[in-house]
């Protein structure tokens, strides 16, 4: 098994010196056990604090927040704030577009990016592994090299291409340039190489064509890899910022992650921080939900896409 395969729960450890308390250790050190939990709890609290502040801020009025110190217990404005941002407000210094619409744009983009990446990578990997044709290796390396061309290093010319193709302010512009995937192609290629040759042979003898084999044999076998990649790529798609910043100029095509930035316009006190923080919560919830619900696939996806 690869060194990075995370197993949960950790495989049973038999210690010759005995297992004590609720920590796994090779010897009895109660003080260290206490320290262990203290450090971990402190870590969890520090990691959670920014989000706690966000939750609290999203349940107060704008006035309550700008009076330093801001309250540290939740207020009673939660429903009003979230309703206000979802349908849009006319108040505040920055953009006041409805966040409900932005969430929809984000959802469509993230799903298109994740499913698009998975689909075109499955097809490419299938072609590269199961067929022999001219320039096969060249194409594989061409796909692989795109790893070295993140959007940040070609932002100007890529913008020009998208603009020339008339794809600004469209779902196509938000998603298509992002759906090539070297890591996904590589991952599926590696996986297909481990599929026993006998399966393809049997399919051929039974008279099944290549697409039938792909659909009925390879795809079901790739289920877990697909699920793992989906989690990672959905988060990737949902969290896009620089690309939407370039290709969208109309509020009705803003994804929420980018829209939230547009809400911050004035100085510290001029912003409706309660509404901005409610939007931040709404922007965080879907990907956090995906990570927590699909934690097993999330960890698998993270570890596998880095191989």
């Amino acid at each position, binding site marked *: 098994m*690869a*060194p*990075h*395969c995370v197993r949960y729960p*950790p495989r049973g450890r038999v*210690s010759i*010196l005995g*297992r004590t308390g*609720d*920590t796994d250790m*090779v*010897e009895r050190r109660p003080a260290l056990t206490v320290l262990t*939990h203290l450090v*971990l709890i402190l870590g969890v609290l520090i990691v959670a604090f920014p989000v706690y*502040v*966000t939750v609290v801020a999203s349940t107060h009025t704008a006035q309550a927040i*700008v009076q*330093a*110190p*801001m309250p540290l217990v939740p207020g009673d404005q939660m429903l009003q704030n979230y309703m206000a941002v979802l349908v849009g407000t006319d108040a505040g210094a920055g953009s006041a577009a409805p966040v409900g619409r932005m969430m929809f744009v984000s959802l469509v983009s993230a799903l298109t990016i994740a499913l698009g990446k998975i689909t075109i990578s499955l*097809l490419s990997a299938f072609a590269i592994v*199961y*067929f022999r*044709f001219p320039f*096969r290796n060249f*194409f594989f390396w*061409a796909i692989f090299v*795109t790893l*070295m*061309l993140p959007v*940040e*290093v*070609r*932002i*100007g*010319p890529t913008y*020009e291409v998208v603009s020339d193709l008339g794809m600004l302010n469209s779902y196509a512009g938000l998603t*298509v340039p992002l759906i*090539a995937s070297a890591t996904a*192609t590589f991952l599926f290629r590696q996986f297909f190489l481990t599929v026993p*040759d006998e399966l*393809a042979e049997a399919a*051929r003898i039974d008279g099944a064509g*290549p697409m039938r*084999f792909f659909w009925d044999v390879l795809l079901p076998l790739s289920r877990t890899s697909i699920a793992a990649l989906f989690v990672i790529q959905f*988060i990737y798609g949902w*969290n896009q*910022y620089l690309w939407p*910043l*370039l290709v969208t100029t109309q509020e009705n095509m803003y994804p929420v*992650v980018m829209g*939230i*930035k547009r809400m*911050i316009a004035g100085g510290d006190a001029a912003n409706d921080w309660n509404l901005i923080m409610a939007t931040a919560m709404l922007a*965080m919830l879907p990907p*956090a939900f995906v*990570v927590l619900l699909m934690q097993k696939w999330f960890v698998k996806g*993270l*570890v596998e896409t*880095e191989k």
Partner: protein
Amino acid sequence: MEKRVRFRSTWLPWALLAPQLAVIGVFFFWPAGQALLQSVQIQDAFGATREFVGLDNFRQLFADQTYIDSFKTTAIFSVLVAGFGISIALVLAVFADRVLRGSAVYKTLLVWPYAVAPAVAGVLWLFMFAPSIGIVPYALRLIGYEWNHLLNADHAMALIVMAAVWKQISYNFLFFLAGLQGIPKSLIEAAAIDGAGPWRRFWTIVFPLLSPVTFFLLVINIVYAFFETFAIIDASTQGGPGKETAILVYRVYYDGFKGLDLGSSAAQSVVLMAIVIALTVVQFRYIEKKVQY
């Protein structure tokens, strides 16, 4: 590794590859070629005329003190992000690895920031540290420390480092935890029998065995700090107070889209490409040697 059994078709493999090739051709290779081309040209603001100028754009770029400063800013920023991100995650992973019951709870509570968008992370930390209304500057004022990242460059750098580290800890944590669980317990027990305490065992056995993971994370964290923190910076400091937090990627965006200096922006793109290629080569050379235990 090659397949023995293959399907025969003259057109099908091309059709299967077509979507991916179309996307990488149109949106990756063509623009990358354009960036290379534009980096040796001067273009007027309307794109009407282009003139070949050789390496002038690069010469100008490296003669520009603010670009050199941006390099330094990026270096300091990545070292801080990688250093803090890796050490904090390692401490948490080592302790989480000790816990037998309840470790799944700790893990769940520590991994979710991975899902937070960098831009949202920037906004969250900006709000906590906003000089006049933020909760942290208020607390700092009580102990007599004045925080203002809008005026103080070190404060601005500290702010983006904190936001970037906060977001990256969960990733590092998962990889360290996986690495720790791959270390044979018999080694640790043998050392314990020989009388080595936890501190000694960590430095002489655990840490050396984790070195492949640590090195891998070092590369990944540097790539992250270089290229994926644009959103954090744009959402919090916007490169400010002056240009003290404008890392290289922020400058490419700013010079190209706000300053409309296409030649310089293209030359910067080429410099960044060289950096990514170098980092990718380092990463893949290492991956061959990764399986050590």
